[in-house]
């Protein structure tokens, strides 16, 4: 394929899932209108959720999910060796995501017991994001990822241009949609700190932004906490929001 006379790249892409809900992979199958065009952009060689054949020759590896067990670490390292570009696909892969909530418990034995009683079960003590194990070349944020953003990113690869994330927080887009600010409605919201690009989905639907896309560029976390407290939210409530996806360093 060509664009304005410049030959495009058709990369071989492989999708790998680790510990997660696989909702991000699903988004790819979900963009029905453009799915056929999308799969003509890349050659999908490995996609366990919808594909039987496997091919271990790929340029881009999309890693979904967080890393929780010894065998997952080994598997990820092998993928890293093969892949030219390794993409952390979704919030779990980028930050650890919801799964990392487990890390707040100091006693892993208690955790196992809480869920499995006295049955033996294998797990690492700590849930890790992909970049805690191997080098990551690119991140795609979101829980789940935003389909049109994924398309834009893959298209950028084909065009050989870098993809740039929006750098500002969600509020900017939320205001564009002419929503009434949730703080005005007495609710807490992570919008002022979270990276835009989701179309302010949650606030536009009347629910708080929960920060799934991680921090915007240079977020003013310190003063935002003061604002949250001024709006009547407790330290505990604030912590709830900050730790949800483990995306914000406190």
């Amino acid at each position, binding site marked *: 394929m060509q664009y304005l006379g410049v030959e495009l790249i058709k990369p071989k892409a492989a999708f790998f899932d680790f510990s997660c809900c696989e909702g991000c992979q*699903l988004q790819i199958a979900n963009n029905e*209108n453009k799915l*056929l065009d999308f799969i003509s952009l890349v050659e999908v060689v490995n996609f366990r*959720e919808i594909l039987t054949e496997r091919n271990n020759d790929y340029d881009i590896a999309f890693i979904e999910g967080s890393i929780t067990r010894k065998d997952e670490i080994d598997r990820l390292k092998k993928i890293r060796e093969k892949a030219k570009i390794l993409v952390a696909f979704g919030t779990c892969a980028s930050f650890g995501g919801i799964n990392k909530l487990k890390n707040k418990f100091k006693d892993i034995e208690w955790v196992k017991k809480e869920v499995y009683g006295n049955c033996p079960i294998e797990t690492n003590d700590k849930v890790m994001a992909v970049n805690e194990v191997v080098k990551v070349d690119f991140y795609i944020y979101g829980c789940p990822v935003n389909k049109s953003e994924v398309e834009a990113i893959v298209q950028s690869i084909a065009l050989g241009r870098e993809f740039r994330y929006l750098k500002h927080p969600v509020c900017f887009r939320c205001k564009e949609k002419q929503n009434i600010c949730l703080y005005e409605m007495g609710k807490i919201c992570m919008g002022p700190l979270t990276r835009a690009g989701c179309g302010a*989905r*949650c606030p536009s*639907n009347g629910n708080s932004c929960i920060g799934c896309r991680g921090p915007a560029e240079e977020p003013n976390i310190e003063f935002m906490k003061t604002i949250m407290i001024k709006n009547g939210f407790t330290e505990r409530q604030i912590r709830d929001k900050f730790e949800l996806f483990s995306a914000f360093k406190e």
Partner: protein
Amino acid sequence: MHNEKDYLTRVEGHGTIDIKVRNGRIKKAEWQVIETPRFFEAMMVDKHFDDVSLIVSRICGICSIAHSTASIRATENAFDVKISGKTELFRRILMNAETLQSHILHLYFLALPDFLGEGSIFPIITKNKNAAEIALRLKKIANDMCDVIGGRNTHPMTMVVGGFTKFPSKESLLILQKDLLNSVPDLIETSKIFMSLKIPDFERETEFVSLKGENNYPWIGGQLMSSDGVLKPESEYKKMTNEFMSDWSTSKLAKLSRDSFAVGSLARINNNFNLLHPKAKEICENFKLKAICYNPFMNNIAQLVECFHAVYETLELFEKVLNMDLSPEDIKIKPKKGKGVGAVEAPRGILYHCNEYNEEGRIVHCDFIIPTGQNHANIREDLNKLVKDYSKKGYSDSEIELLCQMLVRSYDPCISCSVH
């Protein structure tokens, strides 16, 4: 040891079929679940009820609406919250939409390639563009419904304890209604495609567990029933599942009157045949699907029947909600100490959430029982019998291996969900 190449493909999550060969012949096929556990029940401890449904929806990307709905219902039962009729209707629409989207995904993307001897949907896209386009159109309308009403097709956020943060506009509902009406011919085409496929001949008598519908086909809440005659209230879900662990699975397993039981579309239809929409019943007739059907491969057809049901029921629900005032409701929740159970029929079968709260409305303890978890033991038993039956019939090893895979897939297992 867990090797990449062992995982069964075209299912959600990680499981393998361990094939035991003796003297060059398949002796036994064993179902193993090796998904990594995420410990959701532990993560939830101390979480505020506002966040609970948002977190548990991340148990599964495919049935996130069912998880949210079950969780919210559990919390509402714990706090004695009453919801409005409007909320009830919209939740039902969402459950129908998710069922449709999940079933279509399974039928076309995961199951159909087996029947056509392909490795994935991709060759079908090139060889049978028409089928692929039907699949995408049907999935789209289902996803659009989830988008418009749930706020997003995966991990919905409009559904909260007590109701909805926002109801969709009439205009957007009218568009959906029109699209939905237009999707009926596509469904009929789908049923023709599946009529032309050969469903493997296999039966094993088992017990079927589902919600019991009263006046409607069951999606949310109500009594729990089994085809062996067990009937229990929602709150006694534990007596329906009797969870246990085994060394071959990282997921917990379940049993009731026998060693194993089945949940899912086939179980729902077996237990609630008369509550199906008349149009859906017609499809049953076409496929000679009668209660009680013991062929697990027929679960694919049961899903197809439910697609019809979902579309027709949703059209009826749309008529009702379009006549309502869709401005947002005031939601005020007072948390209290207590425990509540929410049972819903997820696409893959009955799903239970049990949330126990302290006075502040923070989780003290919780418990989730996932449909696929309840099916694992049954899958294992089925595989056992399948290998025996088909060896006797003189089928080759590779044919049996494929049948084994097809059998597991026809349960549409959601493994990462079962090992949450």
